């Protein structure tokens, strides 16, 4: 048996969600007696691959086609389908992401595979193939049986530990042709925050709400985020008002995060915001309103003025290090 894992890179490094997918696949491979094949597309720095082996890969394939540096949905789908067949895989594992979701859906049809997204644990194989997924934006779970022979699992972030005890293995270059017809949707440019920790990938997230009164007050959010190596988020009103870019909006209709620590500053905690953060392991709420609904969803809270509490918290965290 054979599993294929599709991994993504960001700024030359393998995304941690992709490393998690590799380790998840290694866990599944152990249950099935299967081999873990990993596929990376486009330019990936040679030193980045070591972690993939350590995370549990048995074989690594690399298609270094520069056209795939961009997340061209059709082209990535085509490459994955070709490699899936070539290695005789029965299951494709990938991390849920903007690109991962888009390619997984096309691959379900190309490969005639049963697809489950938002997977939160290894499957139960005692009676078929039953896997648990998050639904209703984290408000519930569904034990889902896949009846198709081939399977695609899009794994939610922060549900499986990344292994580091595997072996560094050699990367095998692939010789594949991706037909031009897969490049009909042309990516003409991109705007991307350089050097920032990606919000969906982050282990710690610091978010600010409308209680911060204006975009000019985001400096202290940035300082706290920097002190914790955290990604920055915000509530929907903040992004709607244009104080922060949309890709920082955390919530029901924004980014859903699953960090180890989520710090919410001056956010009241509307149910639509909570839907985006309920997969966080620990939630800290700082708000001057003791009746803010967010406190009910929090692990730890401080009732206080953000302008007073946040700089002190940054100082205290810097003092720890």
């Amino acid at each position, binding site marked *: 048996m054979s599993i294929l894992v599709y991994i993504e890179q960001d700024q030359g490094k393998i995304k941690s969600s992709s490393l998690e997918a590799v380790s998840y696949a290694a866990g599944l491979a152990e249950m099935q007696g299967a081999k873990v094949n990993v596929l990376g597309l486009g330019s990936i720095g040679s030193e980045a691959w070591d972690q993939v082996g350590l995370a549990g890969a048995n074989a690594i394939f690399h298609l270094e086609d520069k056209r795939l540096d961009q997340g061209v949905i059709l082209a990535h789908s085509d490459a994955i389908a070709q490699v899936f067949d070539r290695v005789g895989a029965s299951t494709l594992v990938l991390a849920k992401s903007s690109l991962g979701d888009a390619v997984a859906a096309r691959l*379900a049809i190309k490969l005639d595979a049963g697809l489950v997204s938002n997977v939160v644990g290894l499957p139960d194989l005692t009676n078929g193939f039953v896997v648990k997924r998050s639904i209703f934006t984290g408000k519930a779970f*569904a034990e889902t049986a896949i009846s198709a022979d081939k399977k695609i699992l899009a794994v939610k972030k922060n549900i499986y530990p990344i292994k580091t005890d595997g072996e560094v293995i050699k990367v095998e270059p692939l010789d594949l042709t991706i037909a031009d017809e897969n490049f009909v949707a042309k990516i003409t440019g991109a705007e991307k925050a350089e050097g920032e920790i990606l919000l969906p990938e982050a282990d710690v997230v610091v978010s600010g709400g409308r209680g911060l009164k204006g975009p000019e007050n985001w400096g202290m959010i940035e300082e706290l985020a920097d002190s914790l190596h955290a990604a920055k988020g915000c509530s929907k009103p903040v992004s709607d008002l244009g104080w922060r870019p*949309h890709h920082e909006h955390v919530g029901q209709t924004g980014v859903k995060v699953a960090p180890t620590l989520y710090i919410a500053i001056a956010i009241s905690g509307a149910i639509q915001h909570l839907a985006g953060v309920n997969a966080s392991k620990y939630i800290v709420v700082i708000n001057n309103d003791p009746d803010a609904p967010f406190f009910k969803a929090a692990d730890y*809270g401080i009732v206080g003025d953000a302008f007073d*509490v946040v700089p002190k918290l940054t100082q205290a965290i810097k003092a720890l290090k």
Partner: protein
Amino acid sequence: MKILVCITHVPDTTSKIQFIDNNTQLDKNGVQFIIGPYDDYALARAVELKAESNGSITVLNVGEAETEPTLRKALAIGADEAVRINAFPKDAYFVAKQIANFSKDNGYDLILMGRESIDFNGGMVHGMVGELIGIPSISPVMKLEIEGSKGKLSREIEGGKEFIEVDLPFIAGCQEPIAEWKIPNMRGIMSARTKPLTVKEPVDVVAQTVVNSYELPPAKGAVKIVDNVDQLVDLLKNDAKIL
């Protein structure tokens, strides 16, 4: 321009989610159903594009009779006709096959839907439909302009966005800020009553997944409120052990 907008009929975002029948069914008691919020963005953008291009909008739902009020609301917002494929939406694959089968006979220039439904959150149907009918699928789309026969889009990526140009026809999974949600006015509500709502029978499709059971997450423990940051740091360090 002929636009197809596919909508879901889902519990309102403020709904309390509970299950019945030994955790095999959603408890619909007291739950208000709405057009999926992402689908609502897709519909709002379709209404704007229709006005620009003198086009038409068909709104489609795969669902049982209970979804018709949701389709009527879409008509009130500005769709010209509604189609309901009379089937319980078993899984994303089942729904995608129904949409693909319906759309292939109708020559739509543009197919829009939400990036994902807010019940099962799979975000898969647009990509599956695109592959089934052989057109590009792009998601999540936060901006969409049509210039002649070309679409100019921006797609959200982690940490930013990318810009895409693609010829019609294509399919897009939409999200904010592609358009502002539209609230139906009285004229829209009145006219929705007489706009056509056609019921079509589904094609035979075997779903590839089935939900065996549902469960709720464990209840959250009580919040620990502290007076100052030193106590907070202490909890993060010694209680949560994450600093």
